[in-house]
């Protein structure tokens, strides 16, 4: 490969695409040509670098300087100052959210410094469309090693020894699953990658597929060799067109390089991959529903056992793993089970990628060793809560999980500790909420989601979640009664015990966890008919402060319902019966005399 004196990495991840990174990339290509630097500087379009809210983001090597919010008009200056004269363009450097101050170096920014990248080792570092860049970073070495030096049993032993657990939510030991599939009787077997990523607020798998598709392809081929499959499928959700496109491109390149197809790397092993695109059903992330969908049917789950490892796709033994689980495999083969075990905790070795979003200063993707605390993630990597607001809760595990609160901030995070705290690891969505979020409303939100996505096959899920949702809606409208909390808890237990699949069984979790942690907030809605976070509109009242009101009458004229009245120069009043809570009066009052309580 050619050597350059500098590399400009321009993030081409989904976030940065939406803020205009293509134009930045084009401008770099033009400016570098205009300055005759084509032989010296290489421009690379990468997958998500991680700090999506600062996009378009670029990193310039060898120094590793991080520039944020780069516009096409900044490019000329970066080329002339940074690349030609070696001077930093300071106005584009990263600034610390709370304590202030600029940090030029990528690996000194808290958000990156505290990360340990295994699954994301290449994401944001290489051009995902160029297989040579993957190969240059030890890509396909693991596959070669396995095919020429390991028996399938030895591969499985390494994975078992590593202690890797499924990153799709349940945390099942990956090596065991591989072993079950290998040992299941049958000539024909399949390997399936679950890239349905349904948890709303999570985008780890998307980033891997878009930023480093070959790591998944390589891992699936290794898995095929280990379990004895010659065909694999990647099931990608329809909302990720770019991931599908990059993966398609990567599969073609892998075939052209002999990493997929007949007689891989000249051995007797053959394996090929096909992509299948989902069609907008959350329940298809559940493995048995996913397999039904792959077969071209309605994505309805079925009872387990039999598990897919013995009876999966078309009734054949099938190994199904999540994208991030697969992305770890080549690194484990290359660096060994012991190396992997040194990272993370005893029962949850390795790292976990979290999609950090919501009310936090640095949103984006972070990969951290298992065992870090929520405080480190939110307040160090994440830079804390914006606008000096107070941290209230963090939701993990999506619609199947629960919320973690102040008291959990210093708990080391792994599969077991999250369950003990009343939540779960889930796929890695981590949504931060501040004092302005109402936890009753959040519970209602999740239940509305699961109610919407219930496939309807079993009654506890279909009817039970509906009943729970009705109660929650009542509470947010101020029509709740104290016995509603017990009723919710009762219904929750029944659904958990009797629903057919994980969707239904876990649907009550967000409700239970918010009742447990924020009972007072529920009671405020029920007893006092108040929403302390001022979210539930039906419980809010517009009121005029008699001290601040100057009696100008503007609000009364603007109110569409004529709900405001008063005498000139005297304080005005709002007739609460007539008020429709449109908020016009607040906007119009020149003296800020109207507020929501």
């Amino acid at each position, binding site marked *: 490969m050619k050597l350059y004196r500098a590399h400009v990495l321009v993030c081409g991840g989904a976030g940065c695409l939406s803020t205009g990174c293509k134009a930045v990339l084009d401008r770099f290509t033009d400016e570098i040509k205009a300055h005759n630097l084509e032989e010296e500087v290489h421009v690379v379009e990468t997958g998500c670098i991680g700090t999506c809210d600062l996009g378009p983001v670029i990193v310039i090597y060898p120094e590793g300087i991080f520039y944020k919010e780069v516009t096409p008009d900044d490019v000329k200056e970066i080329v002339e100052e940074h690349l030609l004269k070696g001077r930093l363009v300071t106005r584009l450097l990263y600034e610390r959210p709370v304590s202030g101050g600029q940090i030029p170096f990528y690996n000194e920014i808290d958000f990156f410094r505290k990360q340990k990248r295994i699954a994301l080792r290449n994401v944001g570092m290489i051009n995902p469309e160029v297989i040579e860049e993957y190969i240059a970073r030890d890509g396909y070495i693991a596959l070669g090693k396995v095919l020429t030096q390991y028996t399938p049993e030895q591969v499985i032993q390494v994975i078992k020894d590593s202690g890797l657990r499924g990153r799709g939510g349940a945390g099942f030991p990956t090596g065991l699953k591989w072993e079950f599939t290998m040992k299941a009787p049958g000539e024909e077997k399949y390997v399936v990658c679950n890239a349905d990523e349904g948890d709303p607020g999570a985008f780890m798998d998307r980033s891997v597929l878009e930023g480093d598709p070959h790591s998944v392809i390589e891992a699936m081929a290794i898995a095929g060799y280990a379990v004895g499959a010659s065909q694999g499928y990647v099931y990608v959700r329809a909302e990720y067109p770019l991931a599908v496109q990059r993966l398609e491109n990567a599969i073609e390149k892998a075939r052209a390089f002999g990493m997929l197809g007949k007689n891989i790397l000249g051995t007797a092993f053959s394996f090929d991959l096909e992509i299948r695109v989902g*069609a907008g059903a959350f329940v298809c992330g559940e493995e048995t529903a996913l397999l039904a969908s792959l077969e071209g049917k309605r994505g309805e789950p079925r009872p387990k056992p039999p598990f897919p490892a013995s009876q999966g796709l078309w009734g054949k033994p099938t190994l199904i793993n999540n994208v991030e689980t697969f992305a770890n495999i080549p690194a484990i083969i290359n660096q060994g089970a012991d190396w992997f075990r040194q990272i993370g905790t005893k029962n949850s070795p390795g790292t976990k990628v979290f999609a950090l979003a919501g009310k936090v200063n640095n949103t984006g993707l972070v990969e951290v060793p298992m065992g870090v605390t929520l405080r480190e993630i939110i307040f160090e990597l994440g830079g804390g809560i914006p606008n000096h607001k107070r941290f209230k809760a963090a939701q993990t595990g999506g619609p199947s999980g629960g919320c973690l609160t102040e008291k959990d901030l210093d708990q080391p995070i792994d599969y077991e500790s999250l369950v003990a705290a009343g939540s779960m690891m889930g796929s890695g969505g981590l949504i931060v909420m501040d004092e302005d979020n109402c936890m009753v409303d959040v519970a209602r939100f999740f239940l509305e989601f699961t109610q919407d996505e219930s496939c309807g096959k079993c009654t506890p899920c279909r009817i039970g979640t509906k009943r729970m949702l009705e109660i929650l809606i009542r509470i947010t409208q101020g029509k709740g009664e104290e016995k509603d909390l017990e009723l919710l808890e009762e219904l929750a237990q029944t659904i958990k015990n009797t629903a057919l699949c994980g969707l239904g069984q876990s649907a009550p979790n967000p409700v239970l966890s918010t009742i447990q942690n924020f009972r007072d907030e529920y009671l405020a809605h029920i007893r006092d008919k108040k929403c302390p976070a001022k979210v539930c509109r039906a419980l809010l009242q517009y009121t005029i402060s008699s001290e601040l009101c100057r009696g100008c009458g503007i609000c009364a004229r603007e109110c569409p319902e004529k709900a405001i009245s008063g005498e000139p120069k005297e304080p005005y009043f709002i007739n609460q019966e007539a008020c429709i809570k449109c908020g016009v009066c607040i906007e119009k009052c020149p003296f800020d005399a109207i507020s929501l309580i």
Partner: protein
Amino acid sequence: MTETCCRSFSEEQYRDLDKVIAQYQGKPGGLIPVLHQAQLIFGYLPKEIQIRVAEGLNVPLSEVYGVVTFYSFFSQQPRGKHTIGVCLGTACYVKGAADIVEALEEELEIKVGETTANGDFTLMVTRCVGACGLAPVLTVGEDVYGRLTADKIPEVLKHYQKTEA
């Protein structure tokens, strides 16, 4: 072949569909990929097209219908020139996505699930498009807009209204 009932689909569209069907004939699990392609070709999946797919792939129409109605991505109604999808995923929701939906409903004078009278826009909600770092987010076709506030909505819409004029 020529029982084109009510819609003005072109011969070419039918030919394209038949090509897709031929590609998946006899291959197990081909129904969903064929429906994806069919929706790309025709914009939606009316009964007529479902029948053609059923016959072409030799699966019962009831199964095709069952699949079309199960998955929210498939539509039996024609959609506007541009489909707007407002993300109501968790990250977007906690950052005020509900206000964005409201602003769009007001601006377009339609409710979620409806299409504007001029056929320009269909308003839908989606559950996470994977750009959560930029929440709240909406998509128009394959374009993604992030860090939205209600007052940015008219500006976003303008991009698409202009190109139509």
